[in-house]
């Protein structure tokens, strides 16, 4: 009677110690959920979600304070990725935060700009270059299209322009939507 109890007890103790040791020794540092959410967000820092930037919104989602459908720039694809990560059902974008638009960048009309520096202070990614009483200009490659510079501009000289597709960024269409095939285009001869 006593032998099996002791034997099992001993085994339990040994395995318990082994497991406890491995838990400490081979600990896997998981990426915190906030970081994972933040990695999905588009980093426009536009604040349309109602938070001060992408990271605060990620923190709010992680804390359960915000819904996953408050990010218009991320669009449906972003919501789907968040839903997959968090094991939730995807929900449609909450239109009260804005609508999903294509990628656009700010452009300053340089003849109208008075050099007030207000947009410089508003830009969340320091993508506007300029100094007081000197013309400002947007570094297009760094602009996230957040539109935060539009509001403070006293002379309304900033426009959002769509990013032009060129042959190095062009994407082949989905074949079922539009089939770009060599057999598709009929021959058109130049006017002579």
């Amino acid at each position: 009677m006593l032998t099996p109890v002791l034997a099992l007890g001993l085994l339990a103790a040994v395995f318990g110690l082994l497991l406890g040791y491995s838990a400490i020794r081979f600990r896997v540092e998981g990426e915190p959920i906030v970081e994972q959410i933040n990695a999905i967000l588009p980093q426009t820092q536009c604040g349309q979600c109602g938070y001060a930037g992408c990271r605060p919104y990620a923190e709010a989602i992680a804390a359960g304070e915000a819904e996953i459908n408050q990010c218009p720039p991320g669009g449906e694809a972003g919501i789907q990725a968040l839903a997959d990560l968090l094991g939730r059902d995807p929900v449609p974008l909450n239109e009260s935060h804005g609508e999903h638009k294509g990628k656009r960048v700010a452009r300053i009309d340089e003849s109208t700009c008075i050099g007030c520096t207000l947009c410089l202070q508003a830009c969340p990614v320091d993508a506007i270059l300029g100094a007081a009483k000197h013309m400002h200009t947007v570094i297009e490659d760094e602009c996230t299209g957040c539109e935060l510079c539009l509001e403070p501009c006293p002379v309304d000289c900033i426009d959002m322009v769509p990013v032009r597709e060129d042959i190095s960024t062009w994407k082949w269409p989905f074949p079922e939507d539009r089939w770009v095939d060599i057999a598709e285009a009929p021959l058109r001869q130049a006017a002579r």
Partner: protein
Amino acid sequence: MAARFDKLFHFHGGLRLPGHKDQSTAMAVVPARVPPRLILPLHQHIGQPAEALVQPGDRVLKGQLIGRAEGYVSAAVHASSSGRVVEVAERPVPHPSGLTALCVVIETDGLEQWRQRDEPVADYRTLDPSELRNRIRDAGIVGLGGAGFPTFVKMNPGAGHAIELLVINGAECEPYISCDDMLMRERPADIVAGMAILRHAIGARECVIAVEDNKPEATAALRREVQAAGDATVQVVTVPTRYPTGGEKQLIKVLTGREVPSQGLPADIGVVCHNVGTAAAVYRNVLDNEPLVSRFITVTGAGVAQPRNLEVLVGTPIADLVEQCGGYTDAADRLVMGGPMMGFALPDDALPVVKTTNCILVASRDELPPPQAAMPCIRCGECVQVCPADLLPQQLYWYAHSKDFDKTQDYHLFDCIECGCCAQVCPSHIPLVQYYRFAKTEIWAQERERRHADQARRRHEFRLARLEREKQEREQRLRERRKGAPQDTKKAAIQAALERAKAKKAAVGNESVAQADAGEPSTSAADAADKPDSKENA
């Protein structure tokens, strides 16, 4: 050594396709005439577009640099003939997207006046490899087999890549195309000389020129040339005609039996591969100091009256070439740049030919029948049998169709060479390659967006840190000014004044005490005014 290529190997899959090459090889190659207008896109290669160096109104000479290479992977663009620049603007370019790109339009004067050319190099062996690379880069030479990768980049395999074998690719496996065949027949000396230069630059021990066995004239011409040179380390090897033997990785497999690693480069296994046209262009550049301004182009198909090969100035409109081949026939139905397997349709014939254009195919309806409606995949596995990259096309299709891009990469989407064999044999007529191209460009776009987002995140975090630092610095200054600072400076000023007074007293002595007292206040006031600044700076 000579026995090395006696035994050849096979790559997986591939197809035997009707060649249709005889149509265009009957007539000798002649230079095409100088068109009234040349349209030169600044992006004719893989990599960054070139930057325009000319403005409308400028007079340019043949071979003059008009577009400077931007960044490392890029290629220069030169004027193909002399004349006047009339436009530097967005124009339609030959690309499957049908989009516009920046082009330089030159109105030619017909004089073909060359720019100042340096003395030719008597012996390329006196130039070291980096000097050769620079020359080839400045000449704007790109891979003429079709992909258009800047040649000088391939000539710099990097540390840790000892190159054993240089392969000169004359396989030219795609139906209808015969420009490499004609080049090998008519300019074998250029190819062999260019090969020697490339070999000198990369330090390859052995060289092989590979030609498919459906081009006996080309093989004979090259053999004669190689024998005349009398170098035992150079061989001309005939390889079996099978599509796509001309694929770099497939050809290397046939010759050496070795496989280029997944997503790797031939340099990883000590091989570098260049097209015959590229070798000839290298020769002309190094010996004659000519940049890449012309190339051999096949104009063929049932849609042209006299299919043939022409030596064409880069930037010549296609309509001009068709006219020199007797014009269109009634059967002309579609205009394709490249061959029927890997080419793409062009919307009209005002588009120019570019450095990578090897063939203009004016196809009849019989040659390129309209696509049949796609049916569901029945998983017959035909595509797996023919895939020369040894992939699973049906799985790639499955995941590309459901837009599961991670899975397509698990199935090695980026090892697909888009040869079109799978789509050719598909009994359900599924446009398989279109799905792979769609998936590839979607993945690239996602990667671009991710990089852009990471950059934005870093910049935003840096901005937050900067704002925080500035705020703290401001507060610090404010604190110092408001509280401690004024009192400290006052005290210090008084202290300093007292000490100076004492010292003066001691030095001057009793007689001048009254005088020193009178001078004291002004000195201490000046000190007090100086002090706050010095304190703050400290």
